[in-house]
């Protein structure tokens, strides 16, 4: 049966979201104003590390318009601490509450919540809360995090190193050390990536709406994962004694059933995967801190004994880049406060808060050693990674998951005989580390940077050394040294070859000479990688056993009695254009116009259960796959009904523009509504789950750019930036281009503009947009995007993700190009952040202050 009757998949269909968004009809959390809503603001620590000796809110409570104030100890009485999530062997996850009561660990640490009749009054009252702090010595850098003489952030941890684990992969009969000993040389470099911050246009925000009659809560929130928020929000608030909870369990059977339904079927379907969870992770946690068991018990029993469970509704979201996949401490505090007061509460984060506590990322030290033969053959790779997690672990995913993915992806698309990686996570007094678009991206940056360093040492060109070592089609199917399977969709080598064709090297050399007259130095940089988008089945077992289960994705497709097509996803669009791409897929399957497809998302009352929501470049392949198969099943139902009604063979039924007919006689067709009416049905419905296929699921790219470095000013521009990407068959080329370009823009930001800066005492120096610089359209060059569409063997549903790749490739290509430009000065680039001062220092034009 040919499904693609309207042929929208593959076309640059205009975004159906845009009419709504561009004329200001988007509906964001800030637009939600339940009657009588109270406005929330958080009092935040001005110090990076201190003991709270006293907190007095008496005057603030009496201030005009103030309805309630909660301090850290108030919250400890009514909420549970955030529990560890996806525990790993040798990892300690600190337990912490939504507000801090005795110790503050970062500038911006929330210590009190004020609720007042207006935002202004709440902010006025905030200033009246008196907190006495006793300053503590601070831990401001990775080096200080590793130092045994610095004060410990978490009492129960072993120093400030919360994780220290070595993974070794040596599939041959030689050990890693033997491979290194046998290679012609070993080249080592220490690289470091400063701290960045996910910066969405819309900051975080939540409106907890309380029904005045029933007390039922609806949480309107800018969240990437509404089901997760619903669960964690319910679990961590409404603390009660075990006895009370037990009574509730007996009394509230029906409600509980509804709440648990999604989770139960999820747990059933994923029983196998969950069993694979690593018990050693739990053991490490318990060894450090047994209190987790007590909390887990209380959380579990309390959750099941609840009178009522909140719903979560997320509507339009102005970006997130991973930060909104976190459950915020503020979210929990607001739900708890609304529950206590029985009133709706609203919090819209401001930009200063967002820069302090909205999520930071990528601060990592990476020491790489490559064992290589003189002919350029890679033999072994050793990585020593230290992640600066900041003061609090991002929940649920942060540094531990980033390190787990890096451990799998570090070898990249190259052949190696052996690989070893030590990963450490340190706690420091800085903003929390969260997942940021391609959370593992520094494996690509560090590896591709290092490959250039090795090439230079061997006097080979960066392209030559890559082509020599990249896994080629002739080796497929095969597997990465770290486990995941690889098929032809891991087409890294082909994207590099294509990029080299597109670059005009002779012209570049000529331009390079001309530029010298103006004291401008040109450089060329490339970087190649593949990413799991979503990776082959089994990929997540290599990353973190048991987490494969998170990948499940369900979609529901329906045709209602009036003939309208409504489809439901647990993906949460926040800029990725799901309404358009899913519209294309569904329209093709059902033979209707894209305008006739309505996508429902973000509302836990209506959407299928998924713990993860949007993240990990899964929207296209996994969410799109589920959508395709759900709507295909509905098509079969339609065709089936029509074949009976029209007395024709199923194979002869066609659907064109919503008209169901026997091939060749559209005039005698019926609409969906007529079909339903005439067959006395009550509509069509199908739900399908999907989690990927085959050995592929790789998204691939080579980035190549030419930089122009002005050695008078240290400013860097891009005469050319090109990306050859391969995400398989494309649903919508314009949207893919947009995703790639946006990612590259953030990569340019990372290298040239953006840095979450802290001073030596961990004071934040970049708390406004005067100091945290996001590139604007004026700083971003034209970015050429070239597509390759490698199909995976076995065809069907071959979409692969592109949400993260742009950001993964860019920092490496750019820093490589800059090192190439500065090669006459023997510059070695070891930091990812290269502001003008640093550029001139590297070129020897100025000395460091």
């Amino acid at each position: 049966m040919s499904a693609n009757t309207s042929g929208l998949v593959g076309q640059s269909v205009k975004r159906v979201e845009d009419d709504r968004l561009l004329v200001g009809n988007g509906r964001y959390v800030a637009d939600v104003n339940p009657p009588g809503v109270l406005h929330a603001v958080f009092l935040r620590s001005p110090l990076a590390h201190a003991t709270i000796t006293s907190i007095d809110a008496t005057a603030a409570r009496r201030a005009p318009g103030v309805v309630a104030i909660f301090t850290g100890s108030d919250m400890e009485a009514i909420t549970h601490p955030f529990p560890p999530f996806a525990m790993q062997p040798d990892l300690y996850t600190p337990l912490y509450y939504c507000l801090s009561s005795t110790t503050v660990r970062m500038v911006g640490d929330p210590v009190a919540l004020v609720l007042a009749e207006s935002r202004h009054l709440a902010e006025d009252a905030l200033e009246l809360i008196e907190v006495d702090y006793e300053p503590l010595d601070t831990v401001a850098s990775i080096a200080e995090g590793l130092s045994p003489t610095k004060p410990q952030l978490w009492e129960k941890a072993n120093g400030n190193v919360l994780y220290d684990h070595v993974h070794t992969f040596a599939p041959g009969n030689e050990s890693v050390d033997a491979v290194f000993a046998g290679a012609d040389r070993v080249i080592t470099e220490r690289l470091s990536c400063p701290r960045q911050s996910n910066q969405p246009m819309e900051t975080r925000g939540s409106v907890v709406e309380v029904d005045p009659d029933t007390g039922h809560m609806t949480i309107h929130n800018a969240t990437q994962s509404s089901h997760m928020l619903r669960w964690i929000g319910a679990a961590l608030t409404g603390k009660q004694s075990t006895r009370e909870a037990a009574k509730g369990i007996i009394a509230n059977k029906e409600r509980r059933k509804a709440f648990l339904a999604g989770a139960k079927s999820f747990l059933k379907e994923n029983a196998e995967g969950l069993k694979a969870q690593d018990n050693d992770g739990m053991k490490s946690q318990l060894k450090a801190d047994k209190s987790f068991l007590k909390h887990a018990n209380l959380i579990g029993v309390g959750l099941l004994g609840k009178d009522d469970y909140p719903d979560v509704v997320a509507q339009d979201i102005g970006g997130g880049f991973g930060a909104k996949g976190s459950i915020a401490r503020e979210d929990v505090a607001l739900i708890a406060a609304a529950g206590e007061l029985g009133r709706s509460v609203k919090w819209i984060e401001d930009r200063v808060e967002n820069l302090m506590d909205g999520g930071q990322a990528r601060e990592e030290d990476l020491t790489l050693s490559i064992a290589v033969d003189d002919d350029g053959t890679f033999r072994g790779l050793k990585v020593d990674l230290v992640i600066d997690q900041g003061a609090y672990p991002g929940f649920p995913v942060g540094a531990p998951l980033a390190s787990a993915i890096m451990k799998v992806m570090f070898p990249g698309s190259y052949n190696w005989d052996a690989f070893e990686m030590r990963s450490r996570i340190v706690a420091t007094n800085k903003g929390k580390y969260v997942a940021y678009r391609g959370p593992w991206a520094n494996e690509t940056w560090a590896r591709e940077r290092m490959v250039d360093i090795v090439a230079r040492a061997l006097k080979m060109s960066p392209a030559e050394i890559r082509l020599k070592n990249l896994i080629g089609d002739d080796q497929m199917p095969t597997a990465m040294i770290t486990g995941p399977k690889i098929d032809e969709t891991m087409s890294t080598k082909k994207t590099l070859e294509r990029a080299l064709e597109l670059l005009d090297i002779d012209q570049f050399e000529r331009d390079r000479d001309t530029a010298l007259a103006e004291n401008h130095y040109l450089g060329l940089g490339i970087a190649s990688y593949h990413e799991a988008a979503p990776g082959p089945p089994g990929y997540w077992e290599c990353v973190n056993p048991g987490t494969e289960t998170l990948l499940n994705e369900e979609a529901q497709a329906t045709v209602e009695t009036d003939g309208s097509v409504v489809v439901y996803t647990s993906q949460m669009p926040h800029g990725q254009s799901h309404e358009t791409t899913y519209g294309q897929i569904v329209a093709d399957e059902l033979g209707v116009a894209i305008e006739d497809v309505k996508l429902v998302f973000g509302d836990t009352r209506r959407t299928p259960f998924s713990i993860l929501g949007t993240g990990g470049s899964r929207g296209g392949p996994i969410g799109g796959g589920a959508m395709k198969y759900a709507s295909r099943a509905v098509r079969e139902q339609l065709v089936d009904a029509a074949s009976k009604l029209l007395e024709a063979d199923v194979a002869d039924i066609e659907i064109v523009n919503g008209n169901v007919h026997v091939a060749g006689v559209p005039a005698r067709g019926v609409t969906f509504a007529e079909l339903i009416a005439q067959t006395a049905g009550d509509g069509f419905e199908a739900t399908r789950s999907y989690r990927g296929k085959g050995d592929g699921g790789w998204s691939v790219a080579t980035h190549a750019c030419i930089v122009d470095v002005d050695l008078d000013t240290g400013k860097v521009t891009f005469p050319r930036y090109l990306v050859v990407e391969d995400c398989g068959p494309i649903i919508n080329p314009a949207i893919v281009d947009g995703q790639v370009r946006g990612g590259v823009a953030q990569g340019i930001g990372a290298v040239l503009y953006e840095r979450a800066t802290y001073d030596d005492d961990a004071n934040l120096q970049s708390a406004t947009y005067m100091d945290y610089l996001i590139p604007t359209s004026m700083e971003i060059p034209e970015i050429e995007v070239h597509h390759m569409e490698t199909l995976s063997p076995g065809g069907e549903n071959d979409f692969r993700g592109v949400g993260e790749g742009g950001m993964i490739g860019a920092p490496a290509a750019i820093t490589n190009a800059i090192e190439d430009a500065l090669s006459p000065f023997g510059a070695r680039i070891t930091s990812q952040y290269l502001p003008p001062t640093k550029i001139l220092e590297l070129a020897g034009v100025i000395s460091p202050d």
Partner: protein
Amino acid sequence: MKAPPFIYHRPETLDDALALLAEHGDEAKVLAGGQSLIPLMALRMGRPAHVVDLGAIDGLAEITEADGAVSLGPLVRHEQANRSDVIAQHAPLVAQTMPHVAHRAIRTQGTVLGSIAHGDPAAEMPAVVIATGATLTATSSSGERTIAAAEFFEGYLDTALRSDEILTDVTFPAWPSTAVSSVVEVARRHGDYALVGVVTTLDITDDIVTDAALAYFGAASTAIRVSAAEQSLIGSSPSREAFDAAATIVAAELAPPADIHGSTAYRKHLAGVLTTRGLTAAVDSIGVPA
């Protein structure tokens, strides 16, 4: 990010505005375009108890010319100056400066006099004021006084204006037909306050520099001229050597403070580089070979 409580005044005459300032003194702030004041208040870093908005007062947005001298009133927006024929013709340096100030959206609100009164060392207009030797008029309820450019900027965000005064006028002296000028700067991003910038004017008669001004912004706690470098140019003919010599003096004399966007060494270097660029750009406009 909401401002603390304040009382908002919107007087309809200058006298009323001045009376309010006389009454509230230190507690009051004048509001012009609000592009600097409002963010400071929202961050609760500026906490005036009274805000006196000039917006409803007629006649404050005038750009006038008399004997070649150009005067601007306190509600002349940057963008209005940017598009003014009078300024283009009689105050070409001001016209050259405007595109460097922020972005258009901010320029349509922000005022030229507000920028001068605010006295941000990284802003362009204070440097233009000291380069041209403009005259500033401060008015209070007890009368008017004029302040010379060289006396106006006293320190970081600090000027000779008293808290009961409004800057009611800036007058740029007649532009000599023999003068050329330029504004060059380097900012982290387009539209940002400059890391360092320089306003250059040269008077050139018979291929000899007879007067020179090099006024730097982003290089000290106020806009600042480097007279040793200016002196080195006077009497010589414009040439790459003369420009480089001036640049060397500038780089040696200035010690701009470091911040997270640039080190002192970087800004020193930049001041030198921009000196050469600025001088070259200035003479480019008259086709003098550099």
